[in-house]
């Protein structure tokens, strides 16, 4: 058996998918590329008001003053067609995108007792994606197509001869000349046509008449041109007016996500990445890709990611459209370790990272990565990937020496008096006084092979009044790079230290 799923008024349906408020209103669709061609498709309310396809917009508005004329959107049609194919894919992997708003499915091998129930399920699936469809099921693709045309909303052809007998001849879309001849002969329906001998008909009217006879008898067979499912799920909308605030964008994004989550669910996939694109009034486009930390199809989680980003977004130009593209992936399965504490909610953590990035800047949040150089202060922050960390072994016993440094960023400029090649007195905006003891110098250099050459000489110094600092000499300039220990305000070295350690003088 074959099934044909047909979306009547496909282009208008695609345009009205995210304009629910217009469903009951008189609406017509027009191609802005060819305005002289007239209206392409019209809604039922418009038809009741006397508007007809093919009329020019002034003619249509003369008939119905409240008529809304929408421009045709190829992107929205493409997305609606993708949604149709995804639903069809649930029935069988062998599907053909026969035309826009119309696909054929090979149901061979599918064991179904109740074809009507199957059709009703497909209709419900499409209705959840805001698409109204008709479905025909028959023994071959052409019969299924004819059934889909007459379905309200599902029609199963059990007996092809009985179904075809009452159909008018023009249902098969024959050539106008051929149709005129047959009408002249008094042949108006398919039963009358198939009562004629096929050979004699071909002798008189040619091979086209033979093919028409075969179709009328329900005997045509043709292979389907199988299409693959899209690897990305996309929804888009063109605004009628330029948008300057986030509310309409968020409203539409929520609707997009509702639809995309359903489509992902139908394909047994979850969202791994989202790409938000907003065409702007100046012709450019804003684009941003979000990686979902823990792939999911949960609308709330995905919406929060977008909402967090849009909260802090400022654009120089207004948006003229909106597109959300989801790259699907399989739902991840993770085996947690017995002694490991994983992130409870990776998506919430991702959202928090987004908020932190908005607060302090993206370059100031992350996991520290030490660069492959000996140059001082060569670190950068990269986005954390705690979920991918797995069961990283604990560093056995690290070989860090000395007190950790608290680095001054930027370093503090200083004036140092040198006695016998060692710092003896320090003057700076932060620390002043005599130096009691020093360790050093520790010299380092690099980048001598290219223009980014650097060289530094570091000293660890202990001040008379307490406090350990790192001094650095770069060229002829001294600076304080940081402190190892600073005395608390008001505490000087007069009192004996609680953790007493012998002082070392060089």
């Amino acid at each position, binding site marked *: 058996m074959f099934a044909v799923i047909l979306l009547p008024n496909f282009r208008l349906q695609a345009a009205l998918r995210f304009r629910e408020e217009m469903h009951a209103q008189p609406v017509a669709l027009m191609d802005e590329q060819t305005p002289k061609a007239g209206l392409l498709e019209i809604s039922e309310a418009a038809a009741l008001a006397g508007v007809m396809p093919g009329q020019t917009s002034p003619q249509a508005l003369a008939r119905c003053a409240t008529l809304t004329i929408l421009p045709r959107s190829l992107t929205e049609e493409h997305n609606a067609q993708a949604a149709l194919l995804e639903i069809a894919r649930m029935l069988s992997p062998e599907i053909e995108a026969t035309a826009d708003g119309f696909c054929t499915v090979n149901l061979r091998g599918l064991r179904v007792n109740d074809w009507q129930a199957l059709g009703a399920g497909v209709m419900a699936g499409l209705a959840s994606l805001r698409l109204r469809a008709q479905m025909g099921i028959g023994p071959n693709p052409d019969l299924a197509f004819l059934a889909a045309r007459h379905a309200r909303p599902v029609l199963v052809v059990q007996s092809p001869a009985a179904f075809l007998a009452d159909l008018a001849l023009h249902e098969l879309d024959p050539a106008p000349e051929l149709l005129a001849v047959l009408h002249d002969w008094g042949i108006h329906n398919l039963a009358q046509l198939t009562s004629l001998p096929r050979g004699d008909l071909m002798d008189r009217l040619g091979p086209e008449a033979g093919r028409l006879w075969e179709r009328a008898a329900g005997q045509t067979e043709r292979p389907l041109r199988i299409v693959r499912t899209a690897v990305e799920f996309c929804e888009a909308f063109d605004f009628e007016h330029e948008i300057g605030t986030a509310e309409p964008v968020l409203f539409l994004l929520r609707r997009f996500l509702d639809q995309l989550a359903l489509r992902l669910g139908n394909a047994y996939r979850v969202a791994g990445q989202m790409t938000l694109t907003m065409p702007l009034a100046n012709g450019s486009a804003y684009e941003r890709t979000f990686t979902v930390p823990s792939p999911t199809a949960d609308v709330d989680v995905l919406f929060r990611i977008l909402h967090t980003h849009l909260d802090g977004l400022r654009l120089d130009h207004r948006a003229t459209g909106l597109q959300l593209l989801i790259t699907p992936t399989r739902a991840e399965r993770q085996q947690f370790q017995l002694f490991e504490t994983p992130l409870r909610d990776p998506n919430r953590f991702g959202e928090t990272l987004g908020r932190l990035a908005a607060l302090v800047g993206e370059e100031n949040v992350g996991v520290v990565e030490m660069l492959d150089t000996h140059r001082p202060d060569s670190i950068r922050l990269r986005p954390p990937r705690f979920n991918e960390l797995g069961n990283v072994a604990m560093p056995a016993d*690290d070989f860090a020496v000395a007190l950790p440094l608290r680095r001054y960023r930027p370093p503090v400029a200083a004036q140092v008096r040198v006695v016998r090649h060692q710092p003896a007195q320090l003057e700076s905006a932060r620390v002043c006084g005599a130096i009691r003891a020093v360790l050093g110098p520790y010299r380092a250099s690099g980048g001598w092979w290219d223009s980014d050459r650097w060289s530094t000489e570091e000293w660890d110094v202990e001040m008379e009044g307490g406090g350990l600092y790192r001094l650095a000499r770069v060229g002829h300039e001294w600076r304080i790079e940081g402190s190892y220990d600073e005395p608390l305000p008001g505490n000087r070295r007069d009192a004996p230290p609680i953790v007493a350690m012998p002082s070392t003088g060089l």
Partner: protein
Amino acid sequence: MPFLENTRFLSAYLGDQAEKVAQLRCLLAEKFPAMQPKTGGIFHTGLADVDAAEGGLRRAALTELCAASGAGALFIHAMLRAVCQERCFAALVDAARSFEPDCPASLARLLVVFCADAMQAVKATDLLLRDGNLSLIMLDLQAVPPRQLQRIPANTWHRLQRFAEQTTAAVVVLTPQPIVEAAQVRITAGEGWTLAAQRRWQRDLIAMARWHVFARRCVGHHPPALENERECATA
């Protein structure tokens, strides 16, 4: 014996009051279950003094480490070791951008947030507390100018304490002087490192440091050292 009578009266009066307070707490717990403070247990630090006094850092509570900057930096590195040992995740909110890593292996589990000033750091800590994914959050205010610290409203710490109660994270605020009124535990450390420390292993320095723990009595939390005494009293 008027003194004894007074004592009896006082204990009876206090008993009534305690019962009423207990009833009020039960009522509040029923009405607002989400606001019920969690006694989230203990985060083991690996610092002998802290672990001996409290078992570690209290989870779902604010701890203030009030010490010189050297002890604070040492504490942060000790916590990095503990995080790796516990295989959990931690965050360091650095208000003065002063964190200097020295052991790459232990950094993979630490989220670092460099902030421009103390207020921004408090906001970042607020966000991390609401997140609830991390086991340890350290807010480092030690290198911040005192003027900035004075500008932080006192109710900020109470708010953070309320948020902390809803999580199982141990929250440590590192300060140069006591400012966190709402802290459940205050840790102070000895100061006065000399240049000789620069020739020792860091693990030895961590072991040598002396930490003094001052815990505030709070509902539902009993330090492990007191458990036996409590059982005796109940018996």
